[in-house]
């Protein structure tokens, strides 16, 4: 039973969503409404699970006096600071002027934005130290990157200002994006989508069950 019930749940929900696509009314539209509401609620608990797991790991680090225990403590403290404030401030926790939104604006946003911003530096260093035209394929990749990067900013047209307009870099970049780039993306997209479709089908039919843990 431990295996059959989950498989049945997956099969029913999956089939309802597929049928809803072809039969857009009762009873499938109602079931669709229910399922999508439940989905949001369960999804919230699933993310809670992640947060609780993080707390568990951090507590363990402190208990075991691992070398990084101080930072584990910081994780726990900052977690509790924002959750307590968020719960205390009630449903309007997000409105401008609340402490929660202050934390969001001056702590969360700068941190998450900077996390991604520093990648700019690593891109440059990797470009210098590792990105080599080691074979024909890599050469094509770098050439296309070269045209796109230059063509998408004003400098490109300044450098190629002596050429007729339709051969200037901005036009070349546009051409690459609109034609070969689109073709490649489309081939990849169709491939990935086929993979998703077959995986979804396997899951709904109960052939794939690795998400439930363990093999057959």
């Amino acid at each position, binding site marked *: 039973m431990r295996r059959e019930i989950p498989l049945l749940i997956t099969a029913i929900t999956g089939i309802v969503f597929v049928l809803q696509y072809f039969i*857009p009314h009762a009873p499938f539209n109602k079931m669709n409404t229910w399922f999508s509401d439940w989905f949001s609620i369960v999804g919230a608990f699933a993310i809670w699970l992640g947060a609780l797991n*993080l707390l568990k790991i951090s507590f363990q680090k402190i208990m075991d006096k691992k070398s990084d225990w101080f930072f584990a403590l910081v994780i726990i403290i900052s977690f509790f600071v924002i959750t307590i404030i968020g719960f205390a401030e009630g449903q309007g926790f997000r409105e401008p002027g609340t402490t929660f939104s202050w934390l969001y604006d001056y702590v969360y946003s700068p941190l998450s934005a900077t996390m991604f911003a520093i990648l700019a530096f690593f891109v440059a*260093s990797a470009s210098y130290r590792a990105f080599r035209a080691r074979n024909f394929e890599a050469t094509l990749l770098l050439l296309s990157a070269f045209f796109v990067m230059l063509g998408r900013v004003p400098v490109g047209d300044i450098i190629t200002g002596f050429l007729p307009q339709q051969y200037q870099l901005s036009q070349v970049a546009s051409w690459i994006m609109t034609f070969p780039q689109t073709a490649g993306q489309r081939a990849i997209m169709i491939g990935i989508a*086929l*993979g998703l479709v077959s995986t979804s089908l396997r899951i709904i*039919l109960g052939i794939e069950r690795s998400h439930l843990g363990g093999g057959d």
Partner: protein
Amino acid sequence: MRLLIHTTLFLSVFIFIGSSRIFSVEPSPQVQADTLVNTADTVGVSVAPVTSLLVDDYKYDNGEQLNLSWVPSIDDQLIDGKVSVYRVYRITNDSTRELIAELPPGSNSFTDKNLNRHDTYRYIVAAVSASDDEVLSTTTEPVQPQREWINFRRGYLFLLALIIGGAVIYYIQSARRGKKLFVRKIAGLEAVDEAIGRATEMGRPILYIPGILDMDDVQTLAAITILGRVAHQIADYDTKIRMPVSRSLVMTAARETIKTAYQTAGRPDQYSDDMVSYVTDEQFGYVAAVDGIMVREKPATVFLLGAFFAESLILAETGNSIGAIQIAGTARPAQLPFFIAACDFTLIGEELFAASAYLSGEPKALGSLKGQDVGKAIAMIVILVGVIAVTIGNAWDVKFMNDVKDMLTTIFSTQ
């Protein structure tokens, strides 16, 4: 057996739907308003009314829409048109008429949405002149929107989904029955042996990074499958392996995989749990740790297989700077460029899954790979035939070719 039951269940539902097509209600006949009886009641008529006002049911919906069509007023001309706007009125269940839409000159149809299929509706369309004089058309006969059980607009979509889905299931079944399914050679895979050999010769370790997602991601699963093969060879050659991971579940799975490989090679004593270590769940914390390992231990070979995000280029760069042979693979298109430019071999997108199916020989993996190939073959054939048809049809105006093209575009439309 269970698969059979599932498939039958799935198919029988489809057959049920398919058969209900036979019993679906025939659309109600079009109701034509009597255009001869003109009920224009306004004084100072300045434009002619619209004529032939028709209302009919909108097909394949939940009984919520009606289509209106009419012939525009003869005073509605492109040049010097006298009609400034058309107003559509609706009378629900014999109540008073209400304005539901204003349409620009030149309009000749309207779809009224959000209706109730238990109510009856009548319509009037008014042509309005620049001086805001309204001329009404006749009122249509009362009509009820019809509900259709199945959206047959999507029939072809359903059929194609069935073909490709059927192919996946068919190939999985035949693989289970022991049929050999052919998968082509994959370039990156052949480099694996060579890379392991190199590490053995140099007496330096192999570093294996399985991405940063958990075991519920297919890419991580593929990485662990490939690890199985790598581990066998390592056990044979007695090469060292280092595998820092960022998820505890991945750690457990990887340890089991390597342990099994050592047992099969007859050297269980050589295996140690230290080969796989959990570092941290945090993305950049993990990267910093792996960077440190690379710089300190200078592995001869680095595997980067699995789900990677922004850290891909940092890892690939560091691996490159220590002169290691790097074999990478991920299904995330945004990270692939970094791998291709900085690594020696890269498994691109689906190649990662193909590689793992090839190595593991699992029926479900091989079977779906085949099923997907059927999908690709259909896509290729349709593109080829469609493009030839549309080009020839266009250039020499060949009716047959145009028909072929129209048929294909209809089949592949989703609306």
